[in-house]
């Protein structure tokens, strides 16, 4: 089954072709990535057929490439096809195909679309490698490569300030998470002597507790960065500065799910350490809630979707924290489809409305029936309404929580799902109903085709829920009424609330026709409006305050903590280098400097954590200048530094 290599190979070849060909040739080859993605989709379906009906432990295919010798071992880059990988292959190739086709329409006016399609292909290839990878080393390489592609695509419109900054922020924030990955890799190597998934999972009995905790936590930390979990989620909303189809593929469906995917595969390792699992659960709950709250107060369509992605990734983390990988993966799959559907729909909307601000939209529904219809399917799936796919997957998560007696988590998850339904309706009403704004037209056929396909999948995928679980080797069950009803009720309540606040205005406008005929009734409505004011003051505004406080914390406190740490570090550098200066410049002078710096160090610590608003960049710059000050330009100070270092070293070593 070496032909499986063509699955990641074809998109990579596309990238190479785009890399080496001139701009003119590139323009002619634009449909090539789409064609390739259809071929890879076909291959993936064949691969799935080979694995079917699944449930087996052993992979049906394994390809090994000896990569590099390391001591007595050999590092291998191996790929394997097992049920999980096969399922993910379908998801990735299908969505990639939709996005490629969609992009043909979406990007057709852009000057550098050749580069865009090339990088998108490279990304697809990296993601497919990650899915097929059978060793953590290859996973990590693909993981890093995806980070680079994400960076390139977020910053695609680099002429503008925002994408430039956002791309850097995304790259560096996820890089911080990657440190955890590296540490986990090193822990795994020193304990197991292999990076292979199965070798690691078979060796679980021999793991010392501390090593297991460090490796597990490292992986979780990496996933937090990649999958935008609090507090490393800050890059994802900014990443919306990139092209919308790229957001659909990378920042909704695939790359952000990579963290979940890797943790799901390594879940038994994490499960060795209870506190790591509890940490995952807590992070998941916090992220789900925070994402939900913040999605409620955004005005930018894409940002609403971004925060909703964060929230849904939080749900997947919850499932992982509860110890159920299949459920997390199923939510990953359903979410991938309906969220990419929503993003692609948002792209059509943004094209039509020429803005991303919901307050400037409205009345789009009548002119764009296909977009409105498919988008509504997506939002209902997101809200968890029967019979759309989101209902099944979210229901399973809550069922898992209930079965494992995580009652608090279940309650908080339900709250988050209430919020989801609420902002979903807010989104729908703001965009599609109300008065029209300017000329509107339906999207390009290639874009609509993708929407329809994804919407179709979203409608039926939920019913595959037990099959999916069995395919992965778990136990397939249908939703229980005891769990499904409350969660449906919560979602319904959220929808109604959303309608009450955002949708009802339309109702009021309509009732104006009846104003004279039913004056008394209108009075009641009017009174209801007073009630609404009351309601607004008592519930919405406190809520808004909490939300904006959260938003402020989101913007400042976390940055603040980071900045505080940076400030601390910078002062530490100043202290260290003042000491160096002191050695060179005269001790008395230097001691005073150390004193001042040390005081400032404490101050920074204080300010950084208490005030939370410190210009972090400036601090690193100061640290950098401290280093530069040491290099005075006078070679005699260099020599004196060299000799005094030698003197001290000699003195220390002959004691």
């Amino acid at each position, binding site marked *: 089954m070496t032909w499986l290599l063509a699955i990641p190979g074809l998109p990579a070849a596309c990238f190479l072709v785009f890399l080496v060909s001139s701009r003119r040739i590139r323009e002619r080859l634009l449909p090539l990535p789409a064609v390739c993605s259809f071929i890879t989709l076909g291959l993936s379906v064949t691969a799935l057929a080979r694995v079917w009906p699944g449930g087996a432990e052993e992979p049906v295919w394994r390809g090994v490439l000896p990569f590099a010798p390391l001591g007595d071992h050999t590092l291998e880059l191996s790929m394997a096809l097992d049920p999980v990988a096969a399922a993910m292959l379908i998801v990735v190739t299908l969505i990639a195909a939709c996005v490629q086709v969609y992009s043909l329409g979406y990007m057709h006016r852009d000057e550098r679309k050749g580069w865009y399609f090339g990088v998108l292909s490279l990304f697809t290839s990296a993601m497919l490698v990650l899915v097929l990878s059978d060793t953590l080393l290859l996973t990590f390489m693909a993981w890093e490569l995806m980070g680079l592609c994400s960076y390139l695509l977020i910053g695609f419109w680099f002429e503008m300030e925002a994408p430039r900054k956002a791309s850097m922020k995304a790259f560096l924030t996820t890089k911080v998470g990657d440190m955890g990955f590296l540490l986990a890799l090193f822990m795994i190597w020193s304990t197991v002597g292999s990076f292979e998934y199965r070798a690691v999972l078979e060796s679980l009995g021999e793991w010392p507790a501390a090593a297991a905790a460090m490796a597990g936590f490292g992986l979780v930390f990496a996933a937090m960065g990649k999958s935008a979990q609090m507090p490393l989620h800050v890059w994802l909303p900014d990443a919306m500065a990139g092209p919308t189809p790229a957001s659909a593929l990378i920042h909704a469906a695939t790359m952000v799910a990579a963290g979940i995917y890797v943790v799901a595969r390594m879940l038994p390792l994490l499960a060795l350490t209870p506190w790591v699992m509890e940490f995952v659960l807590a992070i998941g709950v916090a992220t789900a809630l925070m994402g939900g709250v913040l999605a409620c107060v955004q005005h930018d369509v894409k940002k609403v979707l971004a925060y909703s992605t964060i929230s849904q990734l939080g749900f997947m983390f919850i499932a992982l924290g509860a110890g159920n990988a299949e459920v997390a993966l199923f939510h990953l799959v359903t979410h991938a489809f309906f969220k990419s559907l929503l993003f692609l729909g948002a792209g059509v909307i943004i094209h039509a409305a020429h803005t991303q601000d919901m307050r400037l939209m409205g009345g789009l529904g009548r002119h764009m029936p296909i977009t409105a219809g498919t988008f509504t399917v997506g939002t209902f799936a997101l809200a968890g309404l029967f019979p759309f796919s989101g209902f099944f997957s979210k229901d399973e998560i809550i069922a898992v929580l209930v079965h494992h007696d995580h009652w608090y988590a279940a309650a908080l998850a339900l709250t988050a799902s209430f919020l989801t339904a609420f902002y979903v309706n807010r989104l729908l009403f703001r965009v599609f109903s109300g008065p029209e704004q300017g000329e509107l037209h339906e999207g390009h056929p290639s874009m609509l085709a993708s929407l329809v396909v994804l919407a179709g999948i979203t409608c039926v995928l939920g019913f595959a829920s037990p099959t999916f679980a069995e395919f992965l080797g778990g136990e397939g069950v249908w939703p229980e009424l005891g769990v499904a009803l409350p969660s449906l009720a919560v979602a319904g309540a959220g929808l109604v609330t959303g309608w009450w606040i955002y949708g009802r205005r339309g109702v009021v406008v309509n009732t104006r026709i009846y104003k004279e005929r039913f004056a008394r009734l209108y009075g009641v409505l009017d009174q209801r409006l007073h009630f609404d004011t009351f309601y607004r003051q008592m519930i919405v505004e406190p809520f808004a305050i909490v939300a904006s406080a959260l938003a402020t914390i989101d913007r400042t406190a976390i940055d603040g903590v980071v900045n505080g740490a940076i400030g601390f570090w910078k002062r530490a550098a100043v202290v260290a280098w003042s000491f160096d200066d002191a050695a*060179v*410049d005269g*001790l008395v002078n230097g001691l005073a400097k150390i004193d001042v710096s040390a005081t400032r160090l404490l101050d920074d610590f204080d300010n950084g954590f208490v005030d939370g608003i410190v210009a972090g960049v400036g601090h690193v710059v100061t640290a950098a200048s401290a280093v530069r000050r040491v290099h005075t330009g006078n070679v005699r*100070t260099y020599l004196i530094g060299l*000799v*005094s270092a030698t003197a*001290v070293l*000699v003195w220390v070593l*002959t004691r």
Partner: protein
Amino acid sequence: MSARDVLFYAYAALSIVCAVGIVRARRLVHAVVWLFATMVALAGIYLTLGSELMAGVQLFVYGGAVTVLALFALVLTRPVPELPARLSSASPWVAGASVLLLLATLITTTVDATELRAGVRPAPSTALVAAELFGRYVVLFEVAGLLLTVALVGAIIVARKDDAS
């Protein structure tokens, strides 16, 4: 105290005085003269060690060639003007402290060193030295020759005017 010990202390004192003279001399030409004097004193020390070979080389190569070279360079360069104080960030005090620390460490370590308790024995003959030089160190000998070539080529191209080619 044997005569050799007396000679050692005398030459040692002389060489230290001359070495201080190198550092303390106000004019560079004086410093070079002090250097020459130090080398002569060291040649005396080599004699107390019983190594006439080294004493001779010291006098002729160092005392002769190197000092003349330094004086030659001195003639070709301009004198250094007095600079305003505090122009540089390099502090003589830190330099002095580092060197003192170094000196103290070296002396205490040397005094404690049991491996240096051995007294002076007859120096190896010149023939033995030559055998070593052209036996074990023949490659080093060749490389030293190459180093002289490098220095020669380097000195020529560095010092000559560029339009000479």
